[in-house]
């Protein structure tokens, strides 16, 4: 059990990585950019985005399924990651457009003029024309990528430190995290906060430096990046929960006071897991929104974080792959039912429009899973494995 690699210690790791690699290969072969074209660009993006949601769900499983912290605010970190990379994408893209427009001028524009014109272009929609302070590093890809990790991490660190040292647990902590994501969302809705209020950041699918390359290729690049991130995170998460750290974290979930009497500072462990998972969510968001093309404050409304918990509950807590299955199944079904793909059912006196009825279906599914399969969809794997052994 010890001294072996994570691939042999946790059997789900090689299986998961193998399936993910097969899936990536399959999508690539069927993609428009590099294969037969059976999968449309937009559907490739949906699949890539789904992988990012699976990544966020994996983080949710670490913090909730393993450490017992029912955070209902982790989507705030996801959104923040998106905003951080979005600032760079928008700045670089808009600047390129501005430069192209000014290129026809007799006198070449100065850098200051380009900067002013870019700011005007981005912020005129909220009646501003200057760069807000938080865009200070938006011209640097490296620094923006750093912020993707730092900002969600720092917010989680400060929030977690305040909450855990006061020993806020259980439903009170859940409510507090809901308040956090709601406050952040409401704050970002303001026009004068510097992130374009309810307009959000848009045009994120246009990747600077890749102007000549079509979305058919870019979509598959992001799909690859998302798959890679999910694969690495899965191995990392399996490693974190496999050793003594994993034992302690699960012990904290089951009886944190007992863990204190063993001499462990429970707060430090919770803070570590909370912050680590916030960073994973930030990275997932930074990969998601360039595929979505747009981010606005509605994305981090409290309901988004609740959905994250629902995915993990439906998929099955405390088994990593359960969270991934839950996120993939539910979010793909959600896309199917709310994206106009599902045919409406005409009952004569009433027409079931799935856009309206999907939440009801999801709620029903949640209740059914809770009642009849408390281990979630991932629990079905137990049945297979057990048959295997018998």
């Amino acid at each position, binding site marked *: 059990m010890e001294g072996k690699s994570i691939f042999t210690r946790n059997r789900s790791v090689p299986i998961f990585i193998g399936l993910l690699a097969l899936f990536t290969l399959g999508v690539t072969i069927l993609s428009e950019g590099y294969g037969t074209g059976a999968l449309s660009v937009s559907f490739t993006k949906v699949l890539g985005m789904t992988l990012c949601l699976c990544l966020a769900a994996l983080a949710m499983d670490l913090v909730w399924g393993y450490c017992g912290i029912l955070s209902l605010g982790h989507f705030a970190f996801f959104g923040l990651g998106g905003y951080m990379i979005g600032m760079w994408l928008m700045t670089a893209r808009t600047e390129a457009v501005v430069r192209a427009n000014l290129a026809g001028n007799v006198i070449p524009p100065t850098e200051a003029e380009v900067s002013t014109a870019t700011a005007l272009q981005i912020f005129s929609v909220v009646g501003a024309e200057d760069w807000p302070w938080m865009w200070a590093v938006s011209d640097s890809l490296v620094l923006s990528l750093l912020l993707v990790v730092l900002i969600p991490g720092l917010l989680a660190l400060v929030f977690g430190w305040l909450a855990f040292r006061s020993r806020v647990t259980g439903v009170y902590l859940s409510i507090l995290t809901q308040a956090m994501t709601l406050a952040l969302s409401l704050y970002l809705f303001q026009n004068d906060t510097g992130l374009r209020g309810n307009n959000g950041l848009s045009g994120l699918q246009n990747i600077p430096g890749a102007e000549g390359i079509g979305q058919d290729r870019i979509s598959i690049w992001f799909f690859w990046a998302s798959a890679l991130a999910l694969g690495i995170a899965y191995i990392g998460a399996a490693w974190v929960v496999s*050793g003594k*750290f994993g*034992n302690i974290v699960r012990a904290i979930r*089951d009886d944190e006071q007992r863990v204190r*009497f*063993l001499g462990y*500072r429970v707060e430090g*462990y919770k803070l570590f897991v909370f912050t680590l998972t916030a960073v994973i969510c930030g990275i997932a968001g930074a990969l998601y929104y360039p595929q979505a093309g747009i981010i606005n404050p509605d994305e981090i409304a409290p309901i988004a974080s609740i959905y994250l918990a629902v995915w993990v509950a439906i998929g099955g807590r405390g088994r990593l792959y359960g969270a991934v299955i839950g996120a993939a199944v539910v979010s793909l079904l959600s896309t199917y039912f709310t994206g106009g793909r599902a045919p409406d059912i005409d009952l004569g006196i009433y027409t079931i429009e799935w856009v309206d009825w999907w939440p009801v279906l999801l709620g029903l599914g949640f209740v059914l899973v809770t009642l009849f399969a408390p281990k979630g969809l991932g629990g079905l794997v137990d049945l297979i494995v057990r048959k295997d052994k018998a």
Partner: protein
Amino acid sequence: MSTLLEVQGISVTFDGFRAINNLSFTIGQPEMRAVIGPNGAGKTTFMDIVTGKTRPDEGSVRWGEMGHSLLSMSEAQIAQAGVGRKFQRPTVFEDQTVWDNLRIALKKPRGPFSSLLDRVSAEDRTRIDEIATEIGLAHHLQRQAGVLSHGQKQWLEIGMLLAQDPRLLLVDEPAAGMTTEERNHTTDLLKRLARNHAVVVVEHDMEFVRRLDCKVTVLHEGSVLAEGTLDHVMADERVIEVYLGR
């Protein structure tokens, strides 16, 4: 024998109920002490105060040769300083194996990063095997703690206490749910530990206490009623009145 724990004049009130009333208690290392008393005498509250779970309204709790106050330390810090506790109701991590339970109790650095990078050394393995043999769970190491019998859980918790290697052991009703043979084994183990540790045993079973053959402290309504050998305190008029109900 030097003083390890010195509790001076502590009192604590819960909603007007005085659970501990001007209680003083001293134990050295090595020493064995049995604490007896009727329900509600404050035995568990006393342990809660020493381990940092409950803060007293007044009084002092001093620890070790330097006389550090335990009152300003967190539960985790107190445990790290060398206070180990076995609960009345066995509290083991049922979702994990016996081996894992012993591993997290093992005396090693307690920080998140040390735990993340912790490797099981040959020394750790030997220690866990020794403890498992001592507590009779050597053949159950890979079983989930949740499927153990009540007595085995008691033993596992005692094993976790051994793995922690504390200087002071607070043991709350160790013999509950054990067979006579197991009780004898427990007394032997506790007596052996008391050769170089400080051991406080809370117990209702007088036969068990007698076999421990140590100084006895009788608690009543949150303070010390009598102290001395078992025969001495049993002969005390007030003890007979409140404890033996005559």
